[in-house]
Structure formats: C-alpha cells, structure tokens
C-alpha cells in the first residue's frame, strides 16, 4: 500500500485525534496561557474562568518564593529516592526467587502481582488502618515483640519523620509486582548458554548476577526508573488516602533552609498541586504544572540518552 490515502486515514483517525487534541493537546497550550493569569479563589463557581486577570510572570515569581512549593519538590525527590530503588530491589529479588522450576510458581506470582491491580485509594485506607496508633496491628506487634513504644500515641502516619517512609513502604509493596513481571519476562529472554559459559569459567552465583544478569536487565531497570519518576510526580491518591487529605503531620523544618514554620510531612508536589487547585488558585496551579512539566521533561531527556531511541519512535 504505497500510495497515500489521506481521506479515509484522517476519517478513521478523527475520533482519536479529536479526543487527543481536546483533552491532551489543547490543555498543554491552555495551561501555559492560564499560568500568566490570576484566577481568584472568589471567582463565580458557574463561570470559573470568567474573570481572569493578566498577571504576567507573577505566578512564576510567587512560585519560587513559595516555601511550601520548594519543600514539596524536595519531598518529591525524597519520595522518589525511597520508592524507586525500593521497588527495583524488591521486584528484582522476587523475580530472582521465582525464576526457576518451582511448584506453585504461578500462584506466588499472582500473590505478588495482585496488589498492583488493586485500587490505590482502598489500599491506602487499609494501610492507614494498619499504621494507626494504639490498636493498629503494626503498633501492637512492635510493642509486643520489640518493646517499641514510639508509635503508640501517633501511629506511623502521625509521626512527621516516619509518615513518608511509611507511605513509600506501602507503595513499594503495591508496585513491586509489576516490576517483578517485567524482570521475569526479561530474565526469560536471557539465553542459557551465557550462564553455562560463565559457569565453565568458574564464576560463582554472585559474580554471574553482577556481571551477566544485571547488565542485561538494564533496559527494564531504566524503564522502572522512568515510570517511578512519573509515579512520584503524579503521587496524589496514596497521600490523600493515608493522611485524610491533610498532607500529613506538620513539623518544623529540620534543615533550617525553609523559613516556613511548619511543613506537611507528606505534602509532595502532586498533592500540593491538588491543594492549590482545590483552593481555586487555577492560574497559580497552572504555573506549577508547567514547572513540574519542565522537571519531568528534563528527567526524560536525561533518560532518553540511555534508552534506545527505537523505543520512542
């Protein structure tokens, strides 16, 4: 079919392109436009975007003076630094454990994978129950077996230093099943002869893992890093569910870098964006989206230099 068939092609393409441009393409442009306007919180609710005032770059300037926003970026970085390596290590471990002849292999694989398809909000609620103070099961177990009483009053999510790691832990358990499936698929593609050759050369198991398996899994690891960064930037529902939409307990900034007196312990950028949005500061939220977009794009650019360009085209 060498000849061009523009009419029917565009006819078939039109439903997709219509939705795509209305809800994905136009928003990118419109968001930029919005970010130069001030939309007040007292705007008429039936005509939210009716009385916008041109504000120039003031949204962006305000954004870089907003301690809460900068703090949310730092928190997002911390969150990503916990979830991404955690997910990769856990899912790789699971994949290596299951990558062998094993009775009931499919059953275990399902058990590890199931949490991944479950609803984020519901799992968040379940973890909140587990982490809860006094009668939360984790609190009781720690108290009974290790005599740790630190969480008795606040629980895990009420403690500013443990709230974010606790959420990250829950998310690692939820997300690792997907990574495991990917690792299992790539492990299955590695040819047996490579391992046999290494064994003949006298390499032990650990050396095989470091020198043969890991380099061959690099594309999968990079893929998990990219999706992990996206997940950290998009992180909202887990925070909403586990902190009752508050953004976690407040605590004084431990580094002294932020002048703000109290900062939400789990207010990562995705959650903060929603907070700003829910206050009706749409212009400000749009400006924030753009900064986050730039962050995401620059990370993607760095990643694209490692990922083969085939995958993008």
């Amino acid at each position: 079919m060498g000849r061009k068939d523009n009419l029917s092609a565009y006819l078939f393409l039109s439903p997709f392109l219509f939705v795509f441009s209305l809800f994905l393409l136009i928003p990118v442009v419109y968001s930029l436009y919005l970010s130069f306007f001030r939309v007040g919180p007292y705007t008429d609710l039936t005509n939210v975007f009716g009385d916008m005032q041109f504000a120039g770059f003031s949204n962006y300037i305000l954004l870089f003076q907003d301690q809460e926003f900068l703090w949310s970026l730092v928190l997002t970085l911390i969150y990503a630094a916990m979830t991404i390596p955690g997910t990769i290590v856990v899912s790789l471990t699971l994949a290596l454990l299951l990558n062998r002849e094993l009775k009931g292999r499919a059953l275990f694989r399902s058990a590890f994978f199931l949490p991944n398809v479950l609803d984020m909000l519901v799992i968040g609620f379940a973890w909140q129950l587990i982490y809860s103070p006094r009668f939360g099961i984790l609190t009781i177990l720690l108290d009974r077996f290790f005599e740790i009483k630190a969480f008795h009053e606040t629980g895990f999510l009420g403690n500013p230093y443990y709230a974010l790691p606790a959420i990250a832990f829950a998310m690692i358990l939820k997300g690792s099943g997907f990574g495991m499936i990917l690792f299992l698929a790539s492990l299955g593609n590695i040819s047996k002869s490579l391992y046999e050759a290494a064994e003949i050369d006298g390499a032990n198991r650990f050396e095989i893992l470091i020198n043969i398996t890991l380099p061959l899994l690099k594309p999968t690891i990079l893929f998990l890093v990219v999706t992990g960064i996206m997940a950290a930037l998009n992180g909202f529902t887990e925070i909403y569910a586990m902190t009752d939409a508050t953004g976690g307990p407040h605590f004084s900034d431990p580094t002294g870098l932020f002048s703000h007196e109290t900062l939400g312990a789990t207010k990562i950028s995705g959650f903060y964006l929603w907070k700003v949005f829910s206050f009706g500061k749409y212009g400000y939220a749009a400006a924030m989206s753009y900064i986050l977009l730039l962050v995401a794009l620059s990370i993607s650019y760095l990643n694209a230099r490692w990922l083969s360009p085939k995958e993008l085209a």
Partner: protein
Amino acid sequence: MTKLRSLIFYFILLILALVFLFPLLWMVVTSFKVPGTGDKFLYVPEQKVAFRFATEKEFEKADIPLNSAQMAKLETLRTQLYSGSKIPLENELFSALEEVTERRLSQDEKRVLLQVLSVRFDINSVDIPQLKKILGASHEEAEAIFAYRLTKGDFDSPTDLEAIPLFSEVQFSYFLSFFSKDTACIHRLDQRPYRRSLELTGEREEVYVQYRDNNGFSVHDPDEIQRIPRFSREKVERWKQKFYSNRLYTLSNYQKILSASPRGDSFTLSRAFVNSTLVSVGTALVTLFVCLLAGYVFAKKDFTGKKLIYSALWASMLIPGMMFLVPQYAIVTWLDGINTYWAMIVPHCANIFGLYLVKQYIEQIPHSLFEAATMDGASELQIFRILIIPLTLPILTTLFLLTFLGQWSNFLWQLITNTPDSMRMTLPVTLAYFKGQYASDWTALMAGATFMLIPIVFLFLIAQRTLIRGMTEGAVKE
C-alpha cells in the same frame, strides 16, 4: 538436605506472599468485625463510660454545665438506656446528652467527656473505692474481689468472678454484664442450630431446655451455661469460644455501608457501584473504538503527517498526568461537564498506550489478507467487520480489561468532576466521602472497600494472563 532447602525456600516465599497480601487480608478481616472493634487486634473488654453515675459536678468538669431540669431529663434517658442487662454504646450516650443540651457535641467535647467520665472497667486494676462507687459493690464484695486478686492473681475471665463468695444472683449478673456487649448474638446462641453445633443433643438438650424453662432464662452470657447440670468443663469452654467469636465477627457492616448514604439523601454505595460500572465500561468501549480505528490507520495506511502525529502522540506520554489537572478541568467546566458521565469517560479515551498495543497487533496481520479482501470488493467497513475485529479480539480484550481496571480505580479526576451533591459519584469518591463521615468506623469503611475490590479481584482471577501480557507489552521490547 535439598529437601530442607526447598522447604526453607517455600517458607520464605510464603512469608513474602503474606506480607504482600496483608493489607488486602486485613481489610477483609476488619470488614467482618463488630462495629467499634475495627481498630482492635484482639478482643479487649470495652472501655465503659460512667454516665450512669455521673453527677452535675462531673459534667461541669467536662465543660458541659447542666441545670437541674436538664439533669432530671438526663436521668430518665439514662434509666431507659441502662434498662435490662444491655450496656449502651458510647454514641447512644452522647446522643442522649445532645438531646438534653439541645446542641451537637463537638469531637473535642466528646473526647474530654470520655476522659472525665470514662472508667476502664478493668476489674484487675480498680481499687476499693472505685469498685464501690462505679460498680455499686458493697464493702464486703469489694474486699472479696481484692482478696481474690491478692491470692489468685488477675481475673482471666468472667467465670472467675464465680469463685468469689457473697455474690447475689443479681449482683453476679450485673458484674457479668460488664463483660458482655451484644445481646443479639447471645440470643442467637439459644437457637437450635447453635445447640446442635455444640452437641447439645439428646438427653443433654432435654436437661438444658428443662433448666431454661424452669429458671425462665435464655442464656444471657456464656457463664450461665455452667449452672446447667451435667456440663463438662470443655463444653463450657467451647460454648464460650463460640460466644466470643460471635461477638467479634458479623455481616452487619455490609448491610450498613450498602444502604447508608454519605450525605444523608438517596445516594448510596449501591448507586455508586452502578455509576462506576457505567463509567468504566463506557470508557473501555469508547477507548476500544477510537484506538481500533487509529491503530488500524497507523498500522496499515500511509498518509501525510503520519510521522509527525505519531511522534506528537509519543511525546505526550512524557507529560506527567497531574499536569493536565487544571486545563482539563477548565475545558470540562467550559463544556458544562461537571457531574456528568461523559466528563468522567471521554478525557481518558485517547489512550496512547492502547493505540500502540492495537497498532502492534494489526501490523502482524499479513498484507495479503487485506489485499485479498480489497480485491473481492470489500469496503473498509466490511474489512473491519470480517477481518480486523475478529483477528484483533485478543488485544481488544486486553485493552478492555486494562481500561476498565484503570477507570475503576481512578480517583483524582472523578473527585474533581463531581461536586459533593452529585448523583454520579463513582465508588472511590463515595468511599472517600464515607471516610470523612465515619472517621473512626473502620469496620463499615473496610466493608465498603472490600465491596469495591470484588470486581477487580474477580477480573484478576479470571484474566490474569491477559492482563499481564497487556501490561508487559511495550514495556520490554527487545
């Protein structure tokens, strides 16, 4: 040796699997617990509130001053509440107080009230004055309890109270009432099927029925059975276990959450279930439609701007979803889409990953098939009907399932496109509203959560392979 090693290996895997499934399991277990025990790990006797004996002074201490008329009114309400052997729930007491003061008590006030008025009826720790004041015990009785504690250690079960002399029958049942909570399940114990399960048959049953008829009681607590002749110790223990497990687990949470409304009107969780189904199925169908058409075009047709459009689509994958929050909301508001189904469905239908899946799949269909069909004079529509749809059915199923699951769990978008009074709220949004309302009613909340996960788990169980194939497709492409 190898056997031991594989045993250890399986053990590790089993522990890991339990850890992974723990939130789900704990959620399901909690959803069956008796209301109020949801955050409890083991059965712990309830903390009781000493409303029964609280005086004006004590209410003043809790910053709720009552005048004498109000006190009198409260007195009658309290007598009603405490009638019989039933112990009222905290909430019943609070609502009695609210009725008297004619205003709503804040959470803070309730907390203070509990602190000031509550007494932990741990019979192992209260002292003699407390025993006398709170339990209304006589001096001798209080001393007897103390003597028991000194000589024999803690009371381990209500039965131990029997070892204390001097107790009248009434007194005894009054003490016991502090250990029992739910009268409904006790009455259930008196029913035939339960008696059967406890092997209360034949001669024993006759004795039991006779005893019950003579003494005019239906079993009020597990210990009463002990007073029936011919019962072995084990029998009593078993009866009691049944009793306690009956008190801990119930189906009532499901009834409650399915019929309750998060905002007190006709909107219920069942309605939200219908909404969720409509939105998820709708999104899946529309996505299939647009992705199938577009995927076919990208796989088999050549047209101006193909490369450009395709790379534009791919580039949009690099944008984090949160970024679309504000402008998509603006567009939906502008199109008057708040509280409508289409606003929840359409924005997610341009699924680029889905397009990619379909395109990959159609590319594998040999050209000769299409050429043969065109030669036979088939129109594009016929090609779709007889060729593409049947051949791409597997990938369409995969895409349908993935979209369905994604939309079933979608929270943020459906939260912002529904106002709090919307009738189109989907399950996650409704559940979040429930959470706000039943802040500490974990059992009901977990029942709702379990209810919501049923379709997901069901789909996962029947279509796991399809799902996994769809999710790994494109992620690892060598």
